[in-house]
Structures are given as C-alpha cells and as structure tokens.
C-alpha cells in the first residue's frame, strides 16, 4: 500500500505546449477561454475568445491511499479519478457534480461545485492541498503540496479554487481524499419547508453520521452513512421511513440530486442557485424550489427578475447565482452575485497580479474583468 500508484498510461503532460500557447496569447494580447470537456461551459458568461484546451493534459500523477492524497493533471476525468479511488474504497468527499460523462478535475476545482455532503464533510476548497498553475505572466508555479498541513506562503491553491479560471490555468492538482462510508441509507419524511429547514439543521447537531439532507416535493430526505451497525442504530434515532430499496437506491437518489437529474430539474425556466445561512426561512419568490445542504443551497426555477432574486437573497445575507439560463438573460442579469465595491476592487487587483494582460476567461466570473 505504501508505493505510489504509477502514472496512468493515458497520462500526458502537456504543460509545455500549454505554456507556449499562453506565451503566444500574452504576446499578441489575445484572450483565451480555458476549456476541458465543456461539461460546465454553461456556468458563467461565455466569451468568444480562442479555446485553450486543457483536456489532453491528463493522467493521475500519484495516488497515496494511506496518505489520503491524489495528484492528477487538470484534464484527468472525474470518472478516472473516482474509479481509481473506488479501487481503494476511497472517494472525493465533496462529491463534485460532473454534469456529463467526461467532466475533468480542472473544471471541478475551477468551478468549486460540491455535492450534497458539503455541509457535513466540506466543500471543494476544504479538500484542495496544492496545485501547479500557469499564470498570465507565462510562468508555471507550484503552491501548496501533497500534505494536509502546510502553511508555507499564501494559500494560492484555495485562491484558485472557484476562481473560474480567471487567475490562471490549473495544470496539476492535489486533493485530499477520504474513505468511502461502508454503508448508507436514506430516511424520508413528509414535511413542509419551514419545518424541514429547522429539522435539517437540528439533525446535524446530534452527533449522528448525517451526510446529506434535502427537501423537495414537500418531503425531507436524510442520508446517514458509516459502518452498518452505526447506521442502523442511528436510523432508529432519526425521524422518517427508510427509502424503499437497497443502498444503490439511496446512492441513486443523491447522485440524481447532485447531477440535476431528478424530475425537479426538468424545467425550462431560468435556474437560480441561492446560497443562504442556516435556518433561513423560505424566501418569498414565486417559483419551484428544491433545498439541498440542510436548506443552505436552494435551487429555484423562476421567471422573477434578477433584481428580485438578488435583493431577496442579499436581504438574508445570502447570494444568488444565475446557474442555467439562456445567454441573453445571463448577459443582462450577470451570473454571479455582484460584489461590494471594496471586495470587487481586491478581486481586480488580484486579477492584475496574476493575469496582467487579462487574457484568461474574460468576464466568465464577473463582468468587470
């Protein structure tokens, strides 16, 4: 178990080729759109720049099951990573949504989306350990590392996580992994939204192995995961009926929620993702709602104006992302919640320090850069 897993055969180090393309773009002041397999290209504003295709920069570089760390190139697919981890009964605990068959690790980290386990096991930024990044200075730099405790220098790896590629091109990424739970089951209980919000928050305070809670169709769903004896004991202490079927049925429910494949997501109206503090009451916006993350991540299909959605979200110290909508609506409304002026200013200054020519993912995150 102590030997590193060898580099996968399909592995392919394209960093020099990518560096050459970036140098060329900097020299000619051409903007670049960093792309992998395009599974998350819907997120953020689209621009017309040339693609910088990172998908061929792929392959697992090392995997140390006993040290809970995997390092892979940005173009490595989540599928390959998940399969490799499964071989050692381990997993990416932040359960990143793939939104397609070939989602890559690079896009996963750049978008920092996380699955149902996020409030319980942490989000993408909680698992990043290190990265190699190609900056707008035409330099390949390495930050963080492959160890869990590391406070040397500023935490650039976390800064890159969720930056939507605006600060540089992620090349190689190290993330912490965790053991898979041996057993899981889901409890189901009919509950109105207001009660579910309180119950979901309270459940996580009981010290029981709750790893996901969601509410939709007037029903609260609770996932518990761990050793079989612990889960059976916990189930007896929690409200709700066991979801019919076996462990696979439980896993499927949460996979469908994560991948937006539940019937709820068959809807042609704009889809908003609203992030709010714990215990926030239902917001008064017309539309259909699904609550994930103990009610802290809310999916909303609505035709309400962006202004209405954003004001209601801000009023409860939350924020709203226009997650899926046609390009014109996104362009008019902006995708990510606007920042206060002081923070926007810091974002712009950081952008300037990483990508002075402004070539990477122009306006993908915010219209100002």
């Amino acid at each position, binding site marked *: 178990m*102590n030997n590193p897993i060898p580099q996968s055969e399909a592995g392919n180090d394209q960093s020099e080729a990518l560096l050459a393309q970036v140098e060329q773009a900097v020299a000619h002041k051409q903007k670049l759109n960093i792309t992998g397999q395009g599974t998350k290209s819907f997120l953020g504003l689209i621009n017309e720049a040339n693609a910088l295709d990172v998908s061929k920069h792929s392959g697992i570089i090392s995997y*140390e*099951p*006993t*040290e*809970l760390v995997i390092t892979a190139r940005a173009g490595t697919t989540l599928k390959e990573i998940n399969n490799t981890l499964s071989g*050692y009964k381990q997993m990416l605990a932040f359960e990143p949504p793939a939104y397609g068959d070939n989602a890559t690790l690079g896009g996963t980290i750049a978008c*920092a989306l996380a699955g149902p386990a996020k*409030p319980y096991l*942490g989000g993408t930024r909680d698992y990043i350990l290190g990265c190699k990044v190609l900056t707008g*200075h035409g330099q390949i730099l390495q*930050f963080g*590392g*492959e*160890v*869990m*405790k*590391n*406070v*040397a*220098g*500023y*935490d*650039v790896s976390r*800064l890159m*996580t*969720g930056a939507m590629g605006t600060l540089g091109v992620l090349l190689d990424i190290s993330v912490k992994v*965790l*053991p898979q739970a041996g057993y899981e089951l889901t409890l189901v209980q009919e509950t109105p939204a207001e009660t579910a919000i*309180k119950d979901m*928050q*309270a459940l*996580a*305070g*009981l*010290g*029981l*192995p709750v790893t996901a809670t969601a509410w939709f169709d007037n029903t609260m769903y609770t996932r518990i995961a*761990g*050793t079989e*004896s*612990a889960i059976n004991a*916990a189930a007896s202490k929690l409200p709700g009926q066991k979801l019919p079927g076996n462990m696979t049925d439980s896993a499927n429910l949460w996979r469908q929620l994560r991948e937006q494949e539940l019937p709820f997501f068959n809807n042609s109206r704009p889809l908003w993702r609203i992030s*709010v*503090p*714990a*215990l926030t009451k239902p917001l008064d916006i017309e539309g259909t709602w699904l609550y994930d993350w103990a009610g*802290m991540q809310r999916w909303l299909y609505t035709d309400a104006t962006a202004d209405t959605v954003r004001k209601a979200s801000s009023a409860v*110290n*939350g*924020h709203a992302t226009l997650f899926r909508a046609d390009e014109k609506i996104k362009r008019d409304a902006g995708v990510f*919640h606007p*920042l206060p002026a*002081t*923070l926007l200013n*810091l974002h712009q*200054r*950081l952008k*300037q*320090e990483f990508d002075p020519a402004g070539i990477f993912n122009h306006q993908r995150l915010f219209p100002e850069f």
Partner: protein
Amino acid sequence: MSGQLFKDETLDIDSDTRSELIARFLDFIDDESVLREDEDLFPYESDGLAVYRQKPPLVVLPETIDQVQKILRICHELQVPVVARGAGTGLSGGALPLKNGIVLGLAKFNKILDIDAEARTATVQPGVRNLAISEAVSDLNLYYAPDPSSQIACTIGGNVAENSGGVHCLKYGMTVHNVLQVTAVTIEGELITVGGTAADTPGFDLLGLLHGSEGMLAVTVEIVVKLLPKPNTTKLLMAAFNSVDTAGDTVAEIIANGIIPAGLEMMDKPAIIAAEAFAKCGYPTDVEALFLCELDGTEEEVQDQLQKVDALVRKNNATVIHIAKDEEERLQLWKGRKSAFPAVGRLSPDYYCIDGTIPRRHLSRVLQQMNTWSAEYDLRIANVFHAGDGNLHPLILFDANVEGELEKTEELGGKILELCVEVGGTITGEHGVGMEKINQMCVQFDSNEITQFHAIKNAFDPTALLNPGKAIPTLNRCAEYGALHVHHGELPHPDIERF
C-alpha cells in the same frame, strides 16, 4: 531559523514620526493604551519564539474597530509599518516587532459577541482565547474544533493569521476549515468582510487567502467560527512498538482500512521518556515508539473502529496495547502528549521546536537522517509527530549558554526543514514562517513563486506596511541564503544578482 542570519537592517523610527503618531493616537485612544515607555514596551519585544527580540518603539491597544481603522489610516498616511499581535504565543516570530513600526495589540478585542446555538456559530473578537470559545459553548454540547497546544492562551485572531492546527486536524481540519467569516481592516483603513454565514460566497476565496497570511494582508477584527456538536463517544487506544517503522506502518494501515481517527499522535523514545517522567501518565518507557489513537463518533461506530484498530495493532506486534478505561484515564494519557514540550524542556536548558510536514511514507528515512545529524552535531532530538497528517515536531535540545550552540541548533533545524522539502513535504505545517523559517522559504519556492507571493501582498498592501519582512523572503535574501546552501550542486535562484 536564523538567529545569526536575522539582521534587521531598517533604521529606527525617527523621533518626529513617533511623536506625531503618539499625538494623533491620543486623539481617540486613552493614554494607557498608547504604550511608549520602555518598561511598558519590553513585554512586547518577542512572541513565543523568544530567541528573536526587538523592542518596539510604540505599542497601541485599540478596543473598537473604528479605532483600528483610524490607526491604520494614520500609519498608511505616514508610511509606518504595523505588526498586529494577539497573545504573542506564535512560535515562528511572526509578531516580532520592527524597529521602525508600531505593534497593534488586539488583546482588548476579547469579547464573544454572539453565540447562535441553533446555527452552531459563534461571533468573536480576535483577542478571544481559542479555548474560551469551547468553554463558552460547552453547556450547549458544542465546541470549537481546532486545538493548537497553546489553546489556553493563544487567540483566535492569531489562529487565523497562522492557520493554526492541533492534534485533531486529520478529521476536523485546521483553522481555515472551521472559520466561516472574517471581518478585517486593510492598511488603507477599509473594512472588508470575507466569507460569510451562507453556504459559500461569490468570487475568489479571500477567506482562504487570509488564513495563514501572517498579518501581511489585513488586520482581523471579527471572526465567525463554526461550532461542532461534541462527539457522543470518544475512545483512546495507546499502542507501543519496538520500532518506529512498525508504528508508522500501523498508522498507514489504520487509514488504509477506512478509519479516520480524531487524533493520531506518535512519539519516539526520547519524547516518551520525557513525557512519562513529567506527567506520570502511564506510558511504557522501554519501547521505541508509541501512538495514541483517538476515535470519536456514535457508540456503535467507535466500537466498530476500535475493534479494527485493536486487531491491526495486534497483527503488527504492538508490545503494549491499552484502551483508556474511562474519561479520567483518557485525559491522563493525553496529558503526557500535550505536555511533551515542557517535559522535553526539563531535560535540557533550552529546546528548539521544529515544525515540518512530510509524506508519512518517508518517516523512517527522515528519522534516520535526524539520528545521524543528532550524532554529528552532538545535539539530542526528541520527536513528537502528528502521525495522521505527517506533521513532525522534532525538539532539539541545546544550551544557549554554551557558546555557538544556538547557532548549531538553528543550522540543524534548517537542515531538517530542508529535508522535509526534499521528501515532498513542507517547512511549516502549522507554526507559520514568520521570521524563523524565512530562509527555508527560498528552498521550498523558486524565485517566480516568491515573486507571485509578493504580488499577492501588493494587491492588498502596495506599500508593504503590514508585517513587512515576515513570511515571504525578498529575492535578495534568497540569493544570499542560496549562496550558503548550494543544493545538489545547483545554484538556487540563479536569476538573481548575488553579492
């Protein structure tokens, strides 16, 4: 680590500037909170790393956010450096004063402002002690997870600045994983709030960036921390082995078997003997290594995991296996580990604590090399090790009164840190770079990476007034240091002019 290499080449603050600062601070801060007499200033001359000392020209102790903003605006206007300080327990010289700057003490920001039992959050001022948070919420069956060994004294603001860890990091993370929101003041006196109580925030992870930034980007004035429910059950297993390698391999097997212990602490023979002599906690002293493996969770989960761990240590021929029979004994066994530093301190007039992290698979190589160096330098080394996450704390025993011994110790410490980098680890797991490890930064990072760090600081603090000279070395410093430490025949930072 560079007692002899640490040279503060800045000039003293000029007396006119100092007088102007005093006069302007006294406009809005009471007289006793603007410290300017030697007897008041001496207590601030060092932090927890007392081998570095510098009496500050001025210490100011504000108690409101508005005062902090005004102080920073004045310092920005007059271009005077500012060193923020909490309890001064840091172990890397991060709060070492500067000859030409003020110390901004946040000790008066010591209030817990709000506890939200249902949301499980606490809003605290930066000068609140780490342990005080857990004490304040204990009756609610909650606690704050990160537990650096100085938790009785260290402040939460300092924890954010250093991204402090502790013995429970493997399962519960470091400070950055347990803080939801930080309100801070920039050098320009602007108030910013990063992170938030919502599930996440739009834009860059500035909350992550501020953690571990060692007071170089902004001054923290308010923090919202996440509270966790106390685990229903906690069990502690002690296992001792006749070789450090077997102990290390057993740790790897525990993790490979799908168990994430709440704490997994290893000690080598010198550390065990010292801790037992000091704390009389029941450690066997005729073994080469022991670890404490703490498991927490529901009763059933802990029982399942305890059985697995017990079977693994038996398979690997542990010479002593003991499960704490009750809470009292559990705390007694922890007491030995937690008092390892003072215990080792009794063996020798002085000791120097190192803080490197290594991939655990290289433990044996690193320990063997340390033994060789220990003999070469004629300095004893005791090792305590956060085995779950690879964070190693070698304690070098020395006598500062013996001429040249401190310098020898620092050189040995530097070599150990560089070895950590060589095997794929890092020069600091949880104590920070500060002043102490600034030269080793040049070993871990190349010139371009260090330049990018300076660029990040530039985005926040373009005139480099917040804790300048700490954490990130200048390229010139690296060139000087590199000239002393040519590695594998390669000249580090070859692009820098040398002198």
